[in-house]
């Protein structure tokens, strides 16, 4: 069964198109990751699905309710965590949680089991002001607040932004336990490496999905071989590689350069020689397995300098 089914959602702000015919669906009980760069329209999509903004065109059925007409009923069944951790800085951890629980007409005690995996780490800080928590703690509290009424669907807008790597790792485990309770999670992120915790991902850019599928599906659909180049001066080599006649695309990936050639079996020897001639750089070139980032780079045709 589908938790979310959207059809041709359009939304524009003035002349800027934020959402351009977004059509996608999310299976119940899975973690769906909307992956894309900043300004792609991820937040607008999440805000639209969680009834905070109305689409100009198109509609979506979320948890069986129409976001345009049945938003009042829908709001009882969704949780939303905005990009900035929306907490009352001048209220304590406990007061924040109590407040959010009471506006949903639930008590913390009866729903404690839902937030337990998230909130257990916050227990010692019950009396601390929310504004005095660390980034990771704020994230956990915001998540607890969005979860306290046991929603069917949880929308998380960039939940791991500004959170340290250890907390991010912890966060993945938490999401897995939430998912185990049958809660559908839709999150947006600009970190490609977070795709691995999602059951299903969608590449999102310029207001629409470029490709959706499970991470494995997406990687296996990537047919071209990728070559990784190690060298000293990445910028010089990158510029030279662009000039090479058989280069389809190349971009920096971590401390290497990834190159996709037009032929399936490229002449790496002459490429190495070409680079040495033009830049005086000795490179090490080797074939590598495509990652989610490679798929995104290729599909969106973005070539960061």
């Amino acid at each position, binding site marked *: 069964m589908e938790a979310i089914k959207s059809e041709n959602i359009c939304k524009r702000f003035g002349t800027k198109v934020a959402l351009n015919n977004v059509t996608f669906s999310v299976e119940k009980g899975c973690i769906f990751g909307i992956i894309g760069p900043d300004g792609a329209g991820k937040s607008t999509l999440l805000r639209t699905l969680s009834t*905070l903004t109305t689409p100009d065109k198109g509609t979506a059925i979320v948890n069986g309710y129409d976001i345009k007409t049945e938003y009042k009923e829908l709001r009882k069944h969704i949780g939303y965590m905005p990009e900035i951790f929306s*907490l009352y800085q*001048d209220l304590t951890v406990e007061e924040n949680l109590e407040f959010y629980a009471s506006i949903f007409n639930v008590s913390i005690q009866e729903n404690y089991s839902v937030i337990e995996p998230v909130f257990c780490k916050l227990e010692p800080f019950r009396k601390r002001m929310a504004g005095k928590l660390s980034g990771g703690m704020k994230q956990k509290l915001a998540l607890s607040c969005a979860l306290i009424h046991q929603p069917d669907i949880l929308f998380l807008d960039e939940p791991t932004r500004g959170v340290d790597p250890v907390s991010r790792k912890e966060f993945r485990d938490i999401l897995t336990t939430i998912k185990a309770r049958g809660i559908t999670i839709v999150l947006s992120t600009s970190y490609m490496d977070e795709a691995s915790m999602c059951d299903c991902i969608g590449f999102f850019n310029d207001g629409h999905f470029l490709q959706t599928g499970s991470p494995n599906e997406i990687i296996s659909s990537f047919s071209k071989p990728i070559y990784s180049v190690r060298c000293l001066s990445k910028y010089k080599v990158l510029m030279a590689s662009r000039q090479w006649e058989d280069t389809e695309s190349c971009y920096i990936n971590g401390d290497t350069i990834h190159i996709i050639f037009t032929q399936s079996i490229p002449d790496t020897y002459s490429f190495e020689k070409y680079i040495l001639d033009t830049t005086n750089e000795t490179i090490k070139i080797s074939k590598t397995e495509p990652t989610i980032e490679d798929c995104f780079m290729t599909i969106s045709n973005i070539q960061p300098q």
Partner: protein
Amino acid sequence: MKRFIVFIKKETLQILRDYRTMLIVILMPAVQIVLFGFALSTEINNIDVAVYAPIRNNTINNISNRIASNSYINFKGYLNNAQEINHAMKSGETDIVIAFSRHIDEVEAGAMPAETSVEIIADASNPVSAKTATGYVSSIISGNLAETAGASNPIKIEPHMLYNPQLQSSYIFVPGILGFIILIICAMITSISIVREKETGTIDMLLVSPVRPIVIVGAKLVPYFALSCVNLATILILAKYLLDIPMQGSIVLICGISLLYIIMSLAFGILVSTISKNQIMAILICAVVMIIPVIMLSGLIFPIENIPVALQYLSCIVPARWYIEAMRILMIEGQPFSAVLKQTVILSSMTVIFLFLAIRNLNKTMR
């Protein structure tokens, strides 16, 4: 209803936690009353006056005696020539010199000389106080001259200062301060507190909940309404017992119209919060649209009759103008309700308009 109370509790807690703002809000009325009532008074005390008289006669003696006995004036004695006048004025020993001409003798004798003049020389480095002081002195002199000349002087100047015989400025300021403070607390602080939720994003968390926006906003207004009432009481009590303002009119009426004004300001605060994106914008809108006109166009400092006609028309759309007018009529003149009917009707219709716009905008921006 249970949710409504939860919201009020949270809002109150937040106000109490921010004790600095709270302190300012509670103390501001008291400080302003004291400032306007005592320090910033426009009435003039201790005017130093000297008299230049080439001859001494009864008229001059009478005038001098009157001046010397006036509690607002310090009589500095007689001067004998132009140099002394010059010196006294330059050194600041006197603020005003009254210079009589020799013809004053003839007036006393019953004759009507072609030209008689009494010169009042004032130190106009502070034009406002010079003007007021000159007014005091000239009224004393003209009163006295009229007495001397008797029936032969048909011109009698008799200024009567109604309601405020001592021209006490605090009488005028108290309604103004009320209008000003209620606006700051209701409109500005309320809109800031709503916009702050927009800035921190907490409003999004609330809007995706089943709570209706009207409940969210309504609950915000309750604590600020209570705060405004506390301030209203503080100001009225201070005005009555510290500044000795007579409070002639009915206290029920004063409070009633004040409550109307409070509700109007709250509605304006919501309206501002729906159109501002951040707290600075909310402050600016409140300051530019409300607070500056309140100071400039409501008669708080400049009497409305004295400002240019175009601005007088503009002042008609400033709610504080009507509120302050009504408060003056009720508090100082002590007139009945019929006297403030016009102001009440105008304030009520403004309240309705603001409430309508606020709720419409609220439903449009949040649903």
